[in-house]
């Protein structure tokens, strides 16, 4: 039997709705046997995550797949355990006329987090639709959804590119303020149509530090198993899942619950998802190879 954990494990979620899965995985008690006293928490910024990885304080944590690959390629010993969410990026519009990517021609797009995955994905699908991101649309970047949403609601831009739960938050706030906006385009659909593999972008999953994996493979396995069950549970109990996550995520439970149907929840081990992940990386790298650290990660990146 492997040695017991020196200290209780913390499962670090990302600050977004998919964390409901990890909250449930911990709350269900399924991990207790392998790792007694496991807690759930959420990191607030990538800096906090980077510091946690550097010190080894972050043993199992949710992160985007490309960031994990990047850490892996930089020798930080990061291994991808599974993928939890498969596409949560949407174009929000005021205008009824916008339904496809092609309709965006000549539009003013409000979006955030330049150079990060949402930005790159959007540029990809624009390109596939025959639009030049730098000419055929006006891209108006802001720092984060925190600025994008109020600006969009206040009338700036024709459409806004938002990921969950910001998209749901925008919709809820718009309803309250009587501003008609709607979810106009599902970027994941557009992506899937082009790749031919269906609407699947392996965006966020659970990662583990190499050292922890080596020392406690059974814990990792148990956590993965618990996550798989939690994924199913969350889809079936969206309201409860919202309540379960609300406090840690500091988002209202209804908001989380409403956002859950739009994040394509489905837990698959990294090895099972490898083809999709590699395709995703190939696509990202076609725009910016450095986003995953310059190369696709080797076999040891994929757990399962």
């Amino acid at each position, binding site marked *: 039997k492997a040695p017991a954990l020196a200290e209780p494990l913390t499962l670090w979620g990302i*600050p977004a709705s998919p964390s409901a899965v990890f909250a449930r995985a911990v709350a269900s008690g399924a991990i207790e046997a392998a790792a007694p006293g496991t807690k759930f928490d959420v*990191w*607030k*910024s990538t*800096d*906090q995550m*980077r*510091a946690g990885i*550097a*010190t080894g*304080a972050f043993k199992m944590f949710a992160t985007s797949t490309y960031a994990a690959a990047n850490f892996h390629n930089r020798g930080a010993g990061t291994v991808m355990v599974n993928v939890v969410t498969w596409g949560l990026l949407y174009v929000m519009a005021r205008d009824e006329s916008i339904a496809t990517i092609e309709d965006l021609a000549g539009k003013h797009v409000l979006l955030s987090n330049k150079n990060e995955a949402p930005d790159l994905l959007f540029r990809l699908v624009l390109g596939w639709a025959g639009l030049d991101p730098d000419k055929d649309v006006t891209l108006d970047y802001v720092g984060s*959804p*925190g600025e994008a*949403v*109020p600006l969009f*609601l*206040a009338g700036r831009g024709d459409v806004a590119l938002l990921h969950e*739960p*910001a998209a749901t*938050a*925008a919709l*809820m*706030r718009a309803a309250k*303020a009587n*501003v008609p906006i709607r979810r106009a385009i599902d970027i994941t659909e557009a992506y899937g149509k082009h790749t031919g593999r269906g609407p699947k972008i392996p965006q966020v999953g659970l990662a583990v530090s190499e050292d922890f994996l080596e020392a406690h493979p059974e814990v990792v396995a148990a956590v993965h198993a618990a996550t798989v069950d939690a994924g199913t549970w969350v889809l079936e109990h969206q309201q409860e899942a919202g309540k379960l996550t609300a406090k840690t995520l*500091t*988002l*209202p439970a209804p*908001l989380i619950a409403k956002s859950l149907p739009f994040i394509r929840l489905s837990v698959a081990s990294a090895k099972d998802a490898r083809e999709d992940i590699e395709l995703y990386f190939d696509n990202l790298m076609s725009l910016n190879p450095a986003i995953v650290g310059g190369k696709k990660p080797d076999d040891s990146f994929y757990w399962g």
Partner: protein
Amino acid sequence: MGKRADRRGFRPVLFAALGIALLLVLWQVGHLAYGSLVLPGLGETAVALWRMTFAGEVGPALAATAFHAAGGWIVGALIGVLAGTLAGLVDDVRFTLRPVAIVLLGVPAIAWIVLALLWFPGHSAVVFTVAVVTAPIVFAAAAEGARSLDGDLAKMARAYRAPPVAMALDVYAPHMLSHLFPAFTATLAMSWKVSVMAELLSGVGGIGDGLAAARARVDTAETMAWVVVLVAVLIVVDRLLLQPFQRRAELWRETGGTAP
């Protein structure tokens, strides 16, 4: 006499209230112009503040941020005063520390927050961040204060063989305080902002957390409520701590102030 009493008691409060009223009016005008989505009204903000206070959200967050801000400010101000005084008195120290101060001031927090989190896990990372912003501003003011001391007074003090403590308290401090106070006021006010930002980056809790959460759910009223809490505390701290101290230190300038 009457005039002087005015200066101390009633008038400053009156005109400070005027300044605050001005800001509130601007705020409400902004609200009317842009709507709640950008700038919530005074009313909604008050309601949000009321609700948050009764939900017990404000107290702990305020305590955490106050601890971060005050701790960082005290550490930073202390280091700034000591290093700055030394730099003001010894040219070479000034030449050496000046680029260091510029680096501390010029490098954005996101560039070294990870390092700070490694060195000082948890709360101390925020305290450290605040100290790093405070110290160089106080340093610059202290250096100039020490440098600009009337050389003749220092000569006099040396001639009377004033011991170091007397030199510091009687000769340097009163002159330097005039340079230090504005730096103190500015950094004290900034310390809260910086600690809120560092809380956001390092995820250790405090008003920063509340602000981030309010933003995430596009609750502008709650966002403003947090800002109001912050500003209210700042103005009270300035009024109750800094201003009386400054008035006492500058008494000699004013007494018998009927002069032209």
